[in-house]
């Protein structure tokens, strides 16, 4: 799950930063008066750090661009014609053209808004966010997603839209029609 990866990666990287600061804090007490040799060594380490970052972050940056949720790239290769759901956000409800879709077959959500900005977030039965896009007046964002498990999914608003923002929920059932 993407969220789990993001969390663990963040913890690892934040811990590495903390270790760096902790190491220096512990080794700050005894002074080396001649700063120049220390500086030269530190610059050499910095070069290595820089190239390590380039070597790690560069491929990660490119690799994560390979599966973008835009256009036809996501779920486009799945079998079968797309099931189209027209989704319109209103203050404070969702209007869906259908509330049942079939599993393992692409769903194309055409998301827009009738009034102000909303966010169309799809949550699975365990209340984990599986996909989202913004709902904006005057624009239609096309979100393609293929559900791989049956169940009742919830639609939550992901962009603050006023007093009942937190109540702007709907449901979509995934299973046999």
């Amino acid at each position, binding site marked *: 799950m993407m969220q789990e990866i993001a969390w663990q990666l963040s913890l690892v990287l934040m811990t590495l930063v903390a270790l760096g600061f902790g190491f220096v804090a512990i080794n700050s*007490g*005894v002074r080396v008066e001649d700063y120049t040799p*220390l500086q030269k060594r530190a610059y050499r380490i910095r070069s290595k750090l820089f190239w390590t970052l380039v070597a790690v972050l560069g491929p990660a940056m490119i690799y994560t661009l390979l599966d973008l949720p835009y256009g036809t790239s996501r779920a486009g290769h799945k079998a079968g014609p797309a099931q189209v759901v027209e989704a319109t956000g209103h203050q404070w409800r969702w209007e869906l053209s259908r509330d049942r879709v079939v599993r393992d077959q692409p769903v194309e959500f055409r998301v827009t808004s009738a009034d102000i900005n909303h966010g169309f*977030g799809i949550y699975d039965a365990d209340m984990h966010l599986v996909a*989202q896009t*913004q709902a*904006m007046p005057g624009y239609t964002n096309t979100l393609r997603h293929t559900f791989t498990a049956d169940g009742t999914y919830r639609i939550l608003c992901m962009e603050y839209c006023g007093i009942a923002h*937190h109540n702007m929920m709907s449901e979509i059932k995934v299973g046999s029609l």
Partner: protein
Amino acid sequence: MANYTYEHTPDRGATAGVLAYLGTACAVLLLMMLVGLLMRLEQAQIIDLGANWFYELMTLHGAGMVGIAGIAGAAVMWHFLRQYVELSPAIFMANLALFLVGVAMIIGSIVFGHFHAAWTFLYPMPSKAMGMWSQEAAALFMGGLLVIGVGFLLMHLDIARAIIARYGNFARALGWPQLFVHDDGKAPPPTVVASTMVTIVNIVGLVVGASILTMMLVNLYLPEFTIDPMLAKGMIYFFGHVFINATIYMAVIAVYEILPRYTQRPWKANRVFLASWSASTLMVMFIFPHHLLMDFAFPQWMLIMGHIIGYLNTVPILVVTGYGALMIVFRSGIRWDMASRLLFLSLFGWAAGAMPAFIDGTITVNYVMHNTLWVPGHFHTYLLLGMVAMVFGFIYYLGKPAQHVRESWLDRAAFWGFTSGALGFTLSFLYAGKESVARRYAVHLPEWLPYDRAGSLFAALVVASSLIFVLRFFSRLGAAGRDYARAPLAQGAAA
């Protein structure tokens, strides 16, 4: 390569203007922290304010914190920059006066007009109130932001004038002759380089912000004048991103100026430093599409640009500023007091917060984490544990009664309370974001409450610790304005 040696610069007290800025910043910061605590307590269902109050407080907290971060950052920058260029105290004070007028307008719009469209005021929400606030309340809020923006623009124009008067142009003030031609070791000091960068980006950002506010004010009274919502969103996030990031780039000047005084080691503008600040000038302005990654209709090349710059942007933070602090502190014999501790902590906070931030800027991650509590998780890390810690370090430095005064146990306890509280508070947000808890919800689902309750506890610790920092500063205002040596000589350093 040019040779850099430490040159001692005497510590100076703050002017009455800087103290007025810092006094205002500390008072409003505490108030806004309390508002933030109330929001977490409401989400945790420990108190019951109701959704209306929650969203009003949320709007106040967002606008108040962004504004006060700007004021605190400006105080740090102005205090140190005046060592190098001739600034206008009158314009500096005019900015504070306009800020206070703007704050009064914003508070009026929220408390009396019940405006609650969030500090992001996304078009066309202010004019589509569904009966929750009046046209006047919306105008008062956006007018207040506009007044504050005009004040900051004036201040930055004065800084631009002063920098150009001293260095000739922005290119020289950014050290481009040393960066691109020959590094003779005479590049402008880090404070000037940072101030130039902030001035460039904030002038552009504030003009864009003022433009969209003006357009929306016109729309409020002439609905037939419509605005493209995507354009409005792009302009708002451009302005918002630039302004809030600039607060960190202003506050970090305290680190560049104070840590060398504590370590008696130089923090000079060498080529790597100059390259990173020039790159940051561009990156801060062009990264803003990472706020729009879930707007699929936005030009895709700009979204990919936001993704890429998100990764690139972490490099200067980690490799130049964060690493630079580690370099001058390592085996320096630095004496740890409240100022040096907080400034060192602040760079950890900035660097650590950049990690979940760039991860969030990855499009495929943003797809399942945008507008969850992951977002306040990362920005509170680099703002609270980073930017705010820089400001607290600065006020402890200003108010330090003498070079070798040992702080009381209460201050040290507050430091550890602030550090652990801020870490716990931000990690509770990040964990909740991992669990998909949606952002800006007045009412949370039962399964989300444990994270809210933990977050409330840590937030209370942050507020209590900050109260001690602020009270200590107010008790030392007299000393903060006088010129005398504050930074202690490092242990074992040649006098």
